[in-house]
């Protein structure tokens, strides 16, 4: 039987498409190469309970995948480095049912109108291929509202003076503010910034048959043990509940088969290694901005821009040690953020001009607590003072941090292609990433880092420190590899097939029935986490199909 659509990937993009299509009566097969720890295998419309507050399992043993021994990626900073510098992880997003939504700590901001029109608003940037998106905020707003309701987003309307206009309220009020975030917000406000409760895909009240968050604190890089994080389990539960969807976990899509202007279906490799063809009327690829271009290249598509313009968000990380306990382990990881460093001010414009840049933008600043004990211990020295230092806990109990998700501009040289030699355990070439930040990212980070430290000083920090991800200068591996977990832009959307891979409806140019529904299509990266925007784009693409 030919299904209406096969959807490659079960993360926020694929789950959103599945939700929309099955609600419209379509039959779908969702193919996910990772394991299913999200849904009850005996009743897929219900949650599973495999997740836990277990640092070993989630931080040290690849429970959510990908395991770099089985599915490595390769990395080099530039072509001059040779075939590769590194084999292993590159900015991994979970390979599991639910994809990146499982490990995210749930911040789901919308982009702002400026984010869709960088070129017309600010002009070109030397070395980067800055462009406007082929749609604007107003066109996407109804889909933002739709996916906020579908996921369940908590937020406080009117709290962010820079926020884009909304057609309706947040589905839920914001949850409890973290102790440290209350203090960092007070300090930021004193210095003229505008912190606000982070829009979060975390239930503040029972929502959609899932409970309110109970503030356990194990959010980032963990699955939620009680499923208070809505993204994307909410969409997957609804999808499976329609009876019109099949979920194939532990199944790899090795090729989209193309005949003329149409895809006929996909080649699958099942859990036992058995290969088969799955015919489908439509193919939706939502495998993320590394694996999606990999699949298109494995499928023989040869558009020269497939894989180009990889963006990851350049992270500026500053931390301060407070003379008081910050309680960063309690609450939903990040309850406050501010946009001031995206919007910019006279000082940032002067810094850009001094550096010879026509303009620059930072990113969303997350107000965040410290780490978990294994992570902390690995950063501390061994020997006679180890336990004494751990008890004083310099980077956990007293730590407060800011992470700025700096806008990463699109450079054609930052790209994904197929590694010429390294393969995954199934025998297919892996994605090779060529990436290094540009001048814009470095200048913006250098400008904003001391300003973030000043907020920490205002909080009373005994010391502050700053770093970036990826590292700068002559950073060695693995520090030269980004760890933002935000990958975007490798299958660019646009109206012109000469300068984009995907049309404004999300379909690959010249193919009538292949839709890309993830952050691969992003034209620019904004300074906000990509999840809500990619889900809104996926919802829009799905509605345009039915």
């Amino acid at each position, binding site marked *: 039987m030919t299904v209406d659509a096969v959807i490659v990937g079960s993360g926020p993009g694929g789950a959103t498409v599945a939700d929309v299509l099955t609600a419209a009566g379509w039959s779908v097969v969702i193919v996910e190469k990772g394991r299913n720890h999200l849904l009850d295998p005996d009743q897929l419309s219900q949650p599973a309970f495999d997740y*836990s507050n277990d*640092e070993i399992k989630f931080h040290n043993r*690849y429970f959510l995948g990908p395991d770099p021994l089985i599915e490595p990626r390769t990395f080099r900073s530039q072509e001059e480095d040779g075939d590769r510098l590194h084999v292993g992880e590159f900015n991994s997003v979970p390979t599991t049912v639910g994809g990146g939504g499982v490990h995210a700590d749930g911040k789901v901001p919308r982009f702002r109108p400026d984010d869709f029109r960088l070129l017309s608003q600010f002009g070109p940037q030397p070395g980067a291929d800055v462009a406007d998106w082929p749609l604007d905020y107003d066109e996407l707003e109804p889909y933002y509202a739709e996916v906020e309701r579908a996921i369940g987003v908590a937020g406080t309307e009117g709290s962010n003076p820079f926020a884009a206009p909304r057609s309706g309220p947040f589905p839920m009020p914001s949850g409890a*503010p973290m102790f440290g975030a209350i203090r960092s917000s007070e300090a930021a406000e004193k210095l003229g910034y505008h912190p606000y409760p982070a829009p979060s895909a975390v239930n503040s009240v029972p929502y959609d048959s899932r409970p309110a968050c*109970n*503030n356990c604190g194990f959010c980032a890089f963990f699955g939620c043990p009680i499923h208070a994080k809505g993204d994307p389990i909410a969409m997957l539960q609804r999808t499976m509940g329609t009876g019109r969807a099949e979920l194939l976990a532990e199944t790899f899509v090795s090729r989209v088969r193309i005949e003329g202007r149409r895809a006929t279906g996909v080649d699958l490799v099942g*859990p*036992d290694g058995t290969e088969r063809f799955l015919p489908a009327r439509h193919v939706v690829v939502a495998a993320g901005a590394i694996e999606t271009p990999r699949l298109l290249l494995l499928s023989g598509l040869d558009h020269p821009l497939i894989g180009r313009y990889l963006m990851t968000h350049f992270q500026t990380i500053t931390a301060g040690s407070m003379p008081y306990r910050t309680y960063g382990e309690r609450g939903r990881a990040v309850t406050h953020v501010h946009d001031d460093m995206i919007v910019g001010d006279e000082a940032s414009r002067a810094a850009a001009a001094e550096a010879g840049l026509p303009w620059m933008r930072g990113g969303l600043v997350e107000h965040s607590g410290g780490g978990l004990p294994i992570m902390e211990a690995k950063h501390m020295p*061994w020997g006679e003072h180890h336990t004494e230092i751990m008890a004083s806990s310099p980077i956990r109990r007293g730590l407060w941090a800011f992470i700025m998700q700096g806008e990463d501009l699109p450079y054609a040289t930052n790209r994904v292609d197929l590694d010429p030699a390294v393969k995954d355990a199934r025998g297919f070439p892996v994605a090779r990433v060529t990436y290094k930040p540009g001048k814009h990212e470095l200048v913006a980070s250098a400008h904003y880092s001391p300003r973030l430290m000043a907020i920490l000083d205002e909080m009373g920090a005994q010391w502050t420190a700053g770093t970036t991800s990826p590292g700068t200068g002559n950073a060695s591996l693995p520090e030269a590899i980004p760890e933002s977990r935000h990958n975007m832009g490798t299958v660019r959307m646009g109206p012109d097939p000469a300068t984009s891979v995907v049309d404004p409806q999300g379909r690959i140019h010249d193919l009538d029935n292949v839709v890309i529904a993830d952050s691969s299509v992003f034209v620019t990266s904004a300074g906000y986490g990509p999840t809500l925007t990619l889900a809104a784009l996926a919802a829009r693409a799905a509605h345009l199909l039915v």
Partner: protein
Amino acid sequence: MPAWLTDAEFAVLSAACDRLIPPFDAGPGASEAGVPEYIDRLLGAFTFDPPRIWAGGPTSGRYGGEAAFTTFHRLTALDELAWRMRIEGSQGRPEREFNGPVVGLQQRYREGLSALGPDFTEVDEAEQVARLRAHPEFTELLYGHSCEGMYGAPEYGGNRDGRAWVAIGFDGDVQPRGWTDEEVSNP
């Protein structure tokens, strides 16, 4: 009785772990906390059924709920391939060498412990530290695993009775209790 190491290797491992994470005030040192058991059970993960790779969920029972961490997850064929490669190494098997040979943890520990010397348990602490510093690559590996065994969930064999968490003021896994809004915002 160790799951994978010999008794002699386990003794050297215990002494080495105690040099990396020695006792302090009321806090346990590594061997008292069970760090050597954690490492031995990782090296011998496949002597258990299911293999001791991923503890279960969603709760440990320490703050209510069932003691589900003690039921380890079953592995898929690919999971098992990955973890056998990581622990046992590729051992010349083609299905494990699709990107070349892999040296496993078992071999690295066997060679690393051997390099510390059979008399490691008998020499004084300064000499033990000197030998660890003389083998930085192995010591880095050992320290990373020692941190996991010391401060991870007790179900993996280390952090006995959660005493290491108590020593550093960490509450551990708190589901299903979590924290009240008051405890979050105004503790």
